[in-house]
């Protein structure tokens, strides 16, 4: 399936992009992350949460085939 992945804040320094679409055949969010860690080794050591379709999810959540966002610590206000 095609997944849109969004990166924010300091994570964009590891990925050098804000958004990408990838074809991925895995089932879980954690599998997708392993794939991204291979592509962007610097990402592995960053602190972030994962949102699927704008809702925070644990990494053992099933991929629904929609939007995934990697969110570093919040700094609003």
């Amino acid at each position, binding site marked *: 399936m095609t997944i849109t992945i969004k990166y924010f804040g300091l994570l964009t320094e590891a990925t050098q992009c804000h958004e990408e679409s990838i074809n991925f055949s895995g089932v879980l969010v954690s599998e997708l992350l392993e794939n991204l860690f291979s592509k962007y080794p610097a990402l592995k050591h960053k602190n972030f949460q994962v949102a699927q379709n704008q809702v925070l999810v644990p990494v053992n959540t099933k991929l629904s085939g929609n939007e995934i966002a990697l969110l570093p610590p*919040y700094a*609003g206000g």
Partner: protein
Amino acid sequence: MTNKKPKNVFRQGAISSEFIGDSIAKHQTKTSIGAHNIFLGQVRADEIDGKTVSAIEYTAYEDMANAKFHEIREAAFAKFNLTCMHIYHSLGTVKAGEICLFVFVSSPRRKVVFEALEFIVEAIKSEVPVFGKEVFEDNTHQWKVNN
């Protein structure tokens, strides 16, 4: 004021004192209000390892952030007897001394606004995906993290 669809809380750049003054003025026709409480977040020129923060560049996961602001808004209206609530947050560059967050609550009674405002501001700080790049005077930067 409840059950609306999420609206856009974000404003490009700093929030001006005139905008805040105008927002206060607009509430003077609402004569059931007895107490307003306003929180303003201002960018600090923090000194870190001998370098001074000159601005914060804000970015956000905008759709999720607006949905979260909406959730916080609905929760506050459910929890507190509020007449009005307004939230504005900056995106882009906000210089030291400028205002990046404006939260405005109003109620017939004062006790309510104190509780509600703190609830809303703490929720914004911890639940809304907004990111801040603290830019130093020499153009290096670090990433802000709320505590």
